[in-house]
């Protein structure tokens, strides 16, 4: 399904129902907009970072004095190695960088097998669209991960944040408290009552299975026949059905920012997580959207924290 086709759906639906199509992108009323800039580090000094963007262009950005970086641990921006893939949160039309995440990856899936004695090798099923993935859990972070993943065995969910190093993904931090049920036993949503709820609250997470610089979200509640995804349409958050191409208004309750994000993929794995986000308050249960890293950062989220409390409405 081409992107033009998906955009077209929005126009056609708006025409048929006489709605306005909201433009995708951040809400202009949120103050200074954040911009996510992705690229590969060519050179870095304490005040300036030079990157090569996915388009092949070279960009030089100013590093703010208060800027911090994460590369498996908090580091000074000037210590980032050349060649690292970075995603940066930038102010002032994307010229001034205040937060850098280098080689950051997120590993979300259902555990298929766990091997190894010290360094664990975990094979994950990342859903029908994303295939299988193997991650390494280094010995020094395995304790920290297992505290939040008490059921470290096949059939249970796994969600961690780590770094890509030498072509392998290393899981370092737990991204959530593991749901206590097997991945195939998602609890039912709370009973819903007639009448349209205009907004649904829950947790919004990110995933690195999107294209670089793609703005979009994976949404769990899609009709199975439309997406060809036999595992869609499961969520414990009481979400309404939408389609690929719908515009979702996502609001970051913690940072008080909102944006219109198109649904670009099936979030069947996100729907299996019935967890909460405790980023700024305790959110209701259920992942309501899995954002692309760029959208997530532009909404004010921190990749290392893994989620923010969110509300969604139809844009």
């Amino acid at each position, binding site marked *: 399904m081409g992107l033009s*086709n998906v955009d*077209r*759906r929005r*126009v*056609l*639906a*708006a*025409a*048929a*129902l*006489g709605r306005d*199509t909201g433009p995708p992108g951040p809400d202009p009323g949120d103050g200074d907009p954040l911009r996510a800039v992705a690229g590969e580090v060519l050179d870095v000094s304490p005040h300036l970072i030079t990157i090569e963007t996915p388009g092949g262009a070279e960009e030089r950005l100013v590093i703010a004095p208060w800027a911090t970086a994460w590369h498996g641990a908090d580091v000074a921006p000037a210590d980032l190695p050349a060649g690292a893939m970075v995603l940066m949160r930038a102010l002032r039309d994307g010229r001034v960088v205040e937060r850098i995440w280098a080689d950051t990856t997120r590993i979300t899936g259902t555990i298929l097998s766990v091997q190894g004695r010290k360094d664990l090798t975990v094979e994950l099923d990342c859903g029908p669209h994303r295939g299988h993935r193997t991650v390494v859990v280094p010995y020094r972070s395995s304790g920290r991960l297992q505290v939040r993943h008490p059921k470290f065995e096949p059939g249970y969910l796994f969600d961690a944040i780590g770094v890509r190093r030498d072509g392998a993904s290393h899981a370092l931090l737990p991204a959530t408290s593991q749901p206590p*049920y*097997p991945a*195939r*036993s*998602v609890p*039912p*949503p709370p*009973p*819903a*009552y*007639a*009448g*349209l*709820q205009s907004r649904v609250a829950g947790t919004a997470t990110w995933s690195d299975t999107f294209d670089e610089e793609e703005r979009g979200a994976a949404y769990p*509640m899609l*009709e199975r*026949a*439309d997406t060809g995804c036999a595992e869609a*349409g*499961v969520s414990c958050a*009481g*979400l*309404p*059905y*939408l*389609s*690929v*191409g*719908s515009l979702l208004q996502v609001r970051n309750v913690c940072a008080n920012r909102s944006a219109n994000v198109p649904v670009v993929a099936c979030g069947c794995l996100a729907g299996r997580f019935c967890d909460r986000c405790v980023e700024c308050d305790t959110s209701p249960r259920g992942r309501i959207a899995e954002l692309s890293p760029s959208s997530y950062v532009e909404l004010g989220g921190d990749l290392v924290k893994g989620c923010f409390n969110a509300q969604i409405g*139809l844009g």
Partner: protein
Amino acid sequence: MTLVLESQLPLLIVMLALGTVAKVITVGSGGEPGSLSRLGPAVLMPGRLQAPALLVCAAGELVLATGLSLTTHPLFRWGTVAFFALSTYVLTELRRRRPDAGCGCFGEVSSAPVGLRSVGRTVALTGMAALSVWSPAPGWEAVLAPSWLTAAGLALLVALSPEVEELIDRVRYRAPCEQRRGPAESVTLARLRSSGTWRAHAGELASTEPYDSWRELCWRFFAFRNHDADDVVFAVYLSGRRPAVRMAVVSAADSGSLPEYTPVSA
């Protein structure tokens, strides 16, 4: 006296048949992973055996219901007594070991935790089955000649069934349309084709098969092309047999909307 003995047979047959149908429907539609994990004695089984266990139970009930209605053979009579007596034991055991699980007697409708009423119902059914053992007539004759005792038994069973309240609640508090699984695409397309809006505009379309279809909230959209290569989009409301249908023509070059026709309800 014979009237007393055979008066409860119709109820037993209906209960067994309902149990069969509800269990088969639950297994068939309950492709939802894990939904069986909270249902009935099947929770005492390992995960992959849960659906077969429900089906075996349903098959047993079907055999008993058929036997009771067609013959007077003691095998089916005593089999029914044994079935309900065993159910009583299983339900008390389930109540003790898995207080969160529903009885699953009527599939997913019986997902409320097993209470004294469910257990009381199997006790009552065991009594009814025992009463019917010596009935001289097969079930179908008893069905044709119901008595006041049958009605009394029915009232007792209704009073002991938590499922009745569950069904009433489901009708009263139905999930809003946008959270319910919609009818199949072909059903909605058939509804669109029987609408007045479709008849008025079908002639303009280059092909009567939509090139794209998607669902958003409570609407399903069908996109067609007309002879000028413009997009013609129909929106069909998902609930109701003769749903509201709206349509618009959007020129291929235009990214904005060009609503030509105001809403038309079929």
